[in-house]
């Protein structure tokens, strides 16, 4: 049942039910039941009940009720597509002159049954009368107008010309003549004269606009479009309007691309564009086969292979093959054997459509190999394209494996070997190697990228970031200046230069060369944009200035920086943090005093988030001890933040800060209060468990771990992948990896090897491996665990292949034991 039909039924119920249908005095149990049946939409029962009432006593109200029940039931049946039954029911409501209770529905039933002439004749019964319901008058008038034109109803001349009905027929006659004139290709002036006879207030207004648009379309298409805009979507002429608009919008055969679905509209467009009959038939056949599906189209094209352009027919069929791969042999029989490349390509696309990712990967690899030995540029680029496609597929589907670990990266590297100039691939690989700390590959790739793309800002930025991360400040500065030379107003490059100079100033301060640090910061000021002053630069200038005795001027700069950083606790915290990072040797009393004073102001979410962001960075991680002490100085103020109404997403960076400074009690208090406020927000449970286990997932009990897995799966199912990732990251965190203690050197060799192995696999419990497999799949899990093993102490003595084998064994064991009771013992 479509919306319109539902609407009609609802209208039927609400429109039919009249509260004053039964006067109080006439209400009997039967009448009450009939009324109730109407109210509930049970019109079939209502019809029966009203018939019984009429048998008992022939009252006008029972007749009225029966007519209403018939009309409403007819609406219900029409909504189900039962137009014949609906028409029969409405016939029961017919008055002696043939008019029915719901004329629009009756006309619709007749049209749907193909009785167009009868529909037009019936609709004409209401012209110039007041027999149609008021709600239908306007629409019925237009429907009658459209039907009278389609069915060529003639005015019999017996009606008084001065009556409303007579005037309507006069308009109908003018409209018919104008339409006939256009259809016969009469001159525009003649059509215009006929159109002038049609009133813009009549039911034929839409036809006047359409014909006017059609005769002016060739010369003034904009005017024609404007005329079409005046016809509403609900109009009985809307289909014709749609066809005219399609013709206006589709020059040069554009409409053949599949935009126009209705065959009537397509026919109209082809006809007004003067397509010859023979071509029209042939094209219609082609379009019909296309809409019937690829199989039909393929068969039709094959039949035409000899009569039409053979190359185009072959190519069209070739492009259909991935959708009908079973026709491959028929194709080869007609056009000759396909090349190995094309065949693999077709099979790969067909496999993707099924979808069978394993087969798709296999066929794409064969397709690429077919072109690998070719020396043309196009072939090399094609190989690059295929391997990049494989990398994308491998990212999404673990079945696309090949024989290597980390298949997506391997495919990208392979793509780069055939198409080294593809910048997005290079950038993606750089990002991957940085994320996975593959230093050797990263250095190699950055070196090659800088040679290939010396003037590419994205590459320079990556190289700059990497140099800064390696503390190679000179190199970073050099790259930053190259970047600025390329793009002088690049705000990101300017910020990098400022950050680098601040880092260098910190180094100088640590080596007690405050004067040099001053100069470094003054240089940084030169790249600062006037409208975007850097708070960090101002703060550092102030702090360094205070140490070299610049007094009030330095303090003013410091205060300016603090204000730029947001003022209050977050501003002074940032100042104190910068002081910590440069190992300031001032007395620090100003910072301590101001930070203490600022804490009299209650915290806001923004201020706490700003502090969380300040503590999240490479430099702060390297000075975590000092940062922890600094955060402890504002602990009381942070505690007040518990009362703020945090959402899980807002709280995430704050939670990260608490984990970094190991303030698990504060984390527990925040999450407890949040869970009290919103018990349904299960993500707070993660933070509660992180706090309870002090960030060590191995301290989770089995039920707790299972609870977190369930929360993660629930989050994934609701597309909250970020939440799910947070949980998985915690469950897979290996904070204890680095806590392997050195032995005292007295153990024998075998014992030492055993200890090394145990230490390396300590955090790779079956439970954890099971979670990794569940999240990433087996292939990816092996790659992840291999990397973990390589990074562990065992990686020193284990070759890459050995680590991979061990990882595979671990995953195989876990997979084999899944289904059995989960064990925390190590099966290897």
């Amino acid at each position: 049942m479509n919306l319109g039909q539902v609407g009609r039924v609802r209208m039927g119920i609400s429109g039919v039910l009249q509260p004053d249908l039964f006067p109080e005095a006439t209400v009997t149990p039967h009448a009450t039941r009939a009324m109730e049946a109407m109210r509930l939409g049970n019109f079939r029962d209502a019809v029966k009940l009203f018939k019984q009432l009429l048998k008992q006593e022939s009252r006008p109200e029972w007749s009225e009720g029966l007519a209403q029940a018939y009309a409403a039931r007819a609406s219900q049946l029409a909504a189900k597509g039962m137009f014949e039954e609906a028409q029969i029911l409405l016939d029961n409501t017919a008055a002696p002159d043939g008019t029915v209770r719901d004329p629009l529905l009756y006309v619709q039933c007749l049209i749907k049954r193909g009785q167009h002439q009868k529909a037009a004749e019936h609709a004409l019964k209401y012209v110039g009368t007041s027999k149609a319901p008021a709600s239908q008058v306007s629409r019925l008038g237009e429907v009658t107008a459209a039907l009278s034109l389609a069915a060529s109803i003639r005015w019999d001349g017996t009606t008084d010309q001065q009556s409303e009905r007579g005037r309507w027929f006069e308009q109908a006659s003018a409209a018919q003549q104008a339409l006939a004139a256009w259809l016969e290709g009469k001159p525009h002036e003649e059509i215009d004269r006929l159109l002038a006879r049609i009133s813009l207030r009549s039911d034929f207004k839409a036809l006047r606009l359409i014909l006017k648009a059609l005769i002016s379309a060739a010369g003034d298409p904009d005017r024609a479009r404007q005329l079409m805009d005046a016809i509403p979507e609900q109009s009985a002429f809307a289909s014709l309007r749609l066809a005219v608009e399609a013709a206006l919008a589709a020059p040069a055969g554009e409409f053949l691309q599949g935009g126009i679905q209705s065959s009537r509209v397509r026919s109209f467009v082809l006809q007004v564009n003067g397509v010859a009959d023979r071509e029209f038939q042939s094209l219609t056949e082609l379009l019909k086969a296309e809409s019937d599906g690829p199989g039909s189209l393929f068969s039709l094209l094959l039949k035409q292979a000899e009569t039409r352009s053979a190359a185009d027919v072959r190519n069209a069929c070739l492009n259909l093959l991935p959708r009908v791969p079973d026709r491959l042999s028929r194709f080869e029989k007609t056009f000759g054997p396909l090349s190995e490349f094309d065949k693999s390509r077709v099979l790969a696309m067909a496999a993707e459509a099924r979808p069978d990712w394993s087969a798709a990967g296999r066929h794409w690899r064969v397709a690429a190999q077919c072109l690998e030995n070719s020396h043309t540029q196009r072939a090399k680029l094609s190989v690059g394209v295929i391997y990049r496609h494989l990398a994308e597929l491998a990212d999404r589907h673990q079945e696309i494996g090949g024989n290597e670990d980390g298949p997506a990266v391997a495919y990208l590297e392979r793509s780069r070997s055939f198409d080294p100039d593809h910048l997005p691939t290079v950038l993606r690989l750089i990002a991957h190697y940085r994320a996975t700390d593959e230093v050797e590959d990263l250095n190699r790739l950055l070196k090659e990228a800088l040679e290939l793309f010396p003037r590419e800002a994205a590459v320079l930025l990556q190289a700059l970031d990497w140099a800064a991360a390696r503390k190679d400040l000179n190199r970073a500065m050099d790259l930053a200046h190259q970047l600025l030379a390329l793009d002088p107003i690049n705000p990101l490059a300017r910020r990098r230069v400022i950050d680098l100079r601040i880092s260098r100033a910190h180094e100088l301060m640590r080596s007690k060369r405050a004067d040099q640090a001053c100069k470094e910061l003054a240089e940084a000021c030169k790249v600062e944009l006037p409208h975007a002053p850097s708070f960090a630069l101002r703060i550092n200038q102030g702090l360094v200035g205070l140490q070299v005795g610049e007094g009030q001027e330095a303090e003013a700069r410091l205060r300016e920086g603090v204000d730029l950083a947001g003022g209050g606790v977050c501003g002074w915290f940032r100042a104190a943090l910068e002081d910590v990072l440069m190992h300031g040797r001032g007395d620090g009393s100003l910072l301590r005093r101001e930070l203490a004073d600022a804490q009299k102001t209650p915290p806001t979410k923004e201020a706490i988030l700003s502090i969380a962001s300040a503590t999240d960075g490479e430099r702060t991680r390297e000075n975590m001890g000092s940062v922890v002490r600094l955060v402890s100085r504002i602990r009381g103020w942070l505690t007040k933040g518990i009362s703020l109404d945090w959402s899980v997403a807002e709280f995430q960076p704050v939670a990260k800060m608490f984990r970094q400074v190991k303030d698990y009690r504060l984390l527990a208090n925040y999450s407890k209060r949040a869970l009290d406020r919103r018990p349904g927000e299960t993500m707070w449970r993660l933070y509660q468990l992180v706090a309870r286990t002090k960030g060590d997932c191995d301290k989770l009990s089995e039920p707790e771990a299972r609870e977190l897995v369930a929360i993660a799966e629930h989050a994934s199912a609701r597309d909250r992948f970020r939440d799910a990732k947070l949980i998985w990251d915690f469950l897979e965190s290996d904070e204890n990896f680095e806590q392997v203690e050195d032995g005292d050197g007295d153990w024998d060799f075998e014992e030492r090897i055993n200890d090394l192995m145990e230490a390396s696999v300590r955090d790779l419990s079956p439970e954890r491996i099971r979670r990794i497999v569940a999240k990433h799949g087996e292939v990816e899990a092996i790659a992840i665990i291999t990397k973990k093993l390589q990074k562990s102490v065992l990686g020193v003595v284990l070759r890459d292949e050995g680590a991979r084998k061990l990882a595979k064994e671990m995953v195989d064991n876990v997979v084999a034991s899944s289904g059995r009771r989960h064990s925390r013992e190590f099966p290897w």
Partner: protein
Amino acid sequence: MVTTDPFTTFGVDEFADDQEIKRRYLALVRAFPPDREPERFQVYRAAFEALCDERKRLQASVIKVNNVALSRLKLRHVASAKPFSARASKATVCALLIEGAAHACSPQVSIPLT
């Protein structure tokens, strides 16, 4: 306007070069400026993005199917077409009028217009 692939949208073949793609794009944008036909412009823009360099064109022709050859076959039928140079048949117009009348009889159904 629904398009199946960027080559068909532009009406160019798989071996069109950068110049041809650019020329075709500019011609289409001139004919259908974005301020007047924003949706159509979006389609042309997307097609241009998909074809603007050789790698992207290869991506569209190697790892995806296209309807270029089929479009050429269709266009051959309408080679002689000239917009609004002829009249529709009475049967076609009547069929459209009856279709419109049937839709208008349903109180809440309207024909989605372009």
